[in-house]
């Protein structure tokens, strides 16, 4: 028997995946980070501003984006477009949250094949969507 015990996720040899969360409301960001850490086997990388998101993807290649619609001086849609322009991130799926009526943003969300979700966040729905996108 090996002296070192590996945690279950490594035993199963499943790929380890990263979710980049961009949310400028600190309490919602912390909630998303905790929910992803505790309820999924994925690793959240939380930032609050679009510049931080662009810096983060120079370091770690994420497997999924979760973006708030209204960000400081920009929108989650504009950030998605910027991220999506990077060749290595072209196929990364994205979930976008909005506190406004989803219908208002339906066209720009659908055009980009994003998944739009409303605030307040339905945790079960979010976790199921994350699992469907990454498994």
């Amino acid at each position, binding site marked *: 028997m090996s002296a070192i015990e590996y*945690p279950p996720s490594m035993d199963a040899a499943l790929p380890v995946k990263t979710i980049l969360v961009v949310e400028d409301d600190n309490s919602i960001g912390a909630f998303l980070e905790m929910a992803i850490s505790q309820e999924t086997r994925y690793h959240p990388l939380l930032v609050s501003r679009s510049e931080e998101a662009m810096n983060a993807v120079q*370091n*770690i290649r994420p497997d999924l984006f979760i973006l708030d619609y209204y960000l400081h001086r920009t929108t989650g849609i504009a950030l998605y477009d910027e991220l999506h322009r990077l060749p290595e991130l072209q196929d990364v799926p994205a979930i976008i949250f909005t506190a406004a009526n989803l219908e208002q943003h339906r066209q720009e969300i659908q055009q980009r094949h994003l998944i739009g979700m409303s605030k307040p966040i339905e945790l079960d729905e979010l976790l199921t969507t994350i699992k469907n996108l990454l498994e």
Partner: protein
Amino acid sequence: MTASPAGKDNPHARTILVVEDDEAIGEFIVQAIQQETPHQALHFTDGYKAWNLMQYRRVMPALLILDYNLPVITGIELYDRIHAQKEFEHIPVLIVSAYHKLCKEVAQERNLPCLEKPFALDDFLNMVEQLMV
């Protein structure tokens, strides 16, 4: 996912030093190591702090993960400094860098593993696992 198996609760845990000047990225890497491997990890934002821990506190890490582009001294300068000391020369080192050319030079001139940024977490952890054997 279960909580970290590493750290003081795991008698077989070994220590990995992560030197990365970006606070959020460094902490993210530490969390990933602690959740996905049996080892514990410490994060430093500059090379001198890591060097001081090893030199003056006699901490012997099992692996060093060094970003190339660090303030004060680069990851390579830190490696050279550590490698020059007999007691530390056996410690494996992983360089991470956003510069493809630099990674290639590091691999050729110093025979060091180098992972290009941005990296997928899975690739990073696989390299860590290989180097910890």
